């Protein structure tokens, strides 16, 4: 198991030496079970860092947000940012490095291996606990999680409460790190990779169509999936069209004729458009951190869209996102042996 004291010691060292401007990690939240992301800048706050099965957020998002914030600052602190990264977070960092969004010397990666475990899915946990509210959760050896509720403690099987992505995860250890905490464990034996996607792909066409219609119908276009995604860092998104400036001289005709690729109305067809465009933009970039699915207020299984393309990329193009920052991206490369049979 990863000892939190090791992480704290290393964080303290980095902050004391002034090598980093902040350590990005997790601390206990004032509300709810899940830990919350925190920027530790003071030595006194290092003791608040935690590491357990409730650290679900993908901290790579804050590297992106911080980058955006720094751009607007007059005298930005250019020291690197230390970040605590799980396997999926580190893959996201790798993709950001691959796309030159951040430079390697801008970030100190404190990699933490999930070892045999993963993070908790609060929806699954709520189902298992049947309405009782969990206040703490911790691993009790491999394969079981001890959950504390107001009315006592319960030991649950890890496979019942871990997030789907963790059950299917093939590399639950950092693929990029300056310091690694914990062991790299390859054998996990929860579920096979892409199991959830394969189940949907195995449906008939009508079933699949109905399945997604039912889900897209609920979408309220809150764009939480976009806001939480570390890969959705574009300044302008195709669904916003903020570059169309309406001034006093803009005629009604210009307004009427401006290009709207995707309507903002929440009809099932337009929602499907939005989610498909997002899936296409994430093809070969999505590292399956499943944050989109977690933050979705209407429980759309968004992860499936991205993993379906990820599985295609792996099977047909032998491409795994986030493994190597030096590899060319999926969409901007090709091989002679790419599938050609589908072309007439």
């Amino acid at each position: 198991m990863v000892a939190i004291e090791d992480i704290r010691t290393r964080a303290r060292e980095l902050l004391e030496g002034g090598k980093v401007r902040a350590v990005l990690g997790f601390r206990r939240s004032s509300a709810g079970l899940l830990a919350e992301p925190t920027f530790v800048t003071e030595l006194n706050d290092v003791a608040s860092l935690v590491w357990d099965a409730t650290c679900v957020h993908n901290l790579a998002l804050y590297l992106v947000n911080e980058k955006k914030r720094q751009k607007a600052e007059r005298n930005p602190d250019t020291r690197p940012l230390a970040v605590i990264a799980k396997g999926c977070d580190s893959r996201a960092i790798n993709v950001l490095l691959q796309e030159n969004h951040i430079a390697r010397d801008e970030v100190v990666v404190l990699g933490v291996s999930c070892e045999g475990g993963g993070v908790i899915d609060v929806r699954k946990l709520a189902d298992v606990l049947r309405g009782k509210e969990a206040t703490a959760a911790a691993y009790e050896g491999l394969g079981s999680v001890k959950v504390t509720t107001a009315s006592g403690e319960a030991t649950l099987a890890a496979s019942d409460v871990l997030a789907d992505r963790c059950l299917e995860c093939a590399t639950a250890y950092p693929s990029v790190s300056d310091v690694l905490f914990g062991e790299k464990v390859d054998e996990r034996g929860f579920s096979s990779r892409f199991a959830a996607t394969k189940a949907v792909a195995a449906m008939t066409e009508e079933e699949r169509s109905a399945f997604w219609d039912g889900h897209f119908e609920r979408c309220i276009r809150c764009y939480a999936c976009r806001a939480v995604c570390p890969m959705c860092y574009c300044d302008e998104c195709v669904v916003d069209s903020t570059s169309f400036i309406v001034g006093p001289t803009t005629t009604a005709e210009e307004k009427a004729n401006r290009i709207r690729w995707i309507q903002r109305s929440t009809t099932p067809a337009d929602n499907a458009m939005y989610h498909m465009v997002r899936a296409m933009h994430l093809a070969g970039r999505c590292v399956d951190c499943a944050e989109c699915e977690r933050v979705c207020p209407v429980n759309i299984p968004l992860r499936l869209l991205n993993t379906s393309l990820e599985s295609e990329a792996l099977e047909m193009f032998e491409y795994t996102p986030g493994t190597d920052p030096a590899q060319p991206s999926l969409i901007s490369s090709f091989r002679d042996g790419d599938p050609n049979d589908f072309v007439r």
Partner: protein
Amino acid sequence: MSEVLEAPVQAKKEAQEFEPKIVAFLCKWCSSAGSDLAGVSRLQYPPNAVPIQVMCSGSVSPLYILSAFNKGADGVLVSGCHPGDCHYLKGNFFARRRIYLVQKLLKFIGLESDRFRMSWVSAAEGTKYAQVVADFVKDIKALGPQRKLKAKN
């Protein structure tokens, strides 16, 4: 008596027969010239495909394809030069990979896989273009109108 009554009904039925709208993204250097050749050779093929000339099949963004479906297309065809013949040397290889992913995504979402097609048509293959469009129209007529991705307005 009944013949007199049924004749106009029959005529109306035929007039209402579903005619698919197909948006065809044709690369300027090969497929567009190929469709021109089909025209000047006076080949008979269905008029359902609306050609949109693009500079390269590699320049067709997935968004164009999805948008065409959203605006009411019953089928979308992307056509470019044969592999190795691209005017920009490798544009169609990029297109092949990207279109493959779009096709898989459309299939995953539950759209009939016959509604979206890619073809290689060179500037000399007027007959092939006519054949590709004829086949496409035939397949889409069997499927009926596309409603899944069409915006309601």
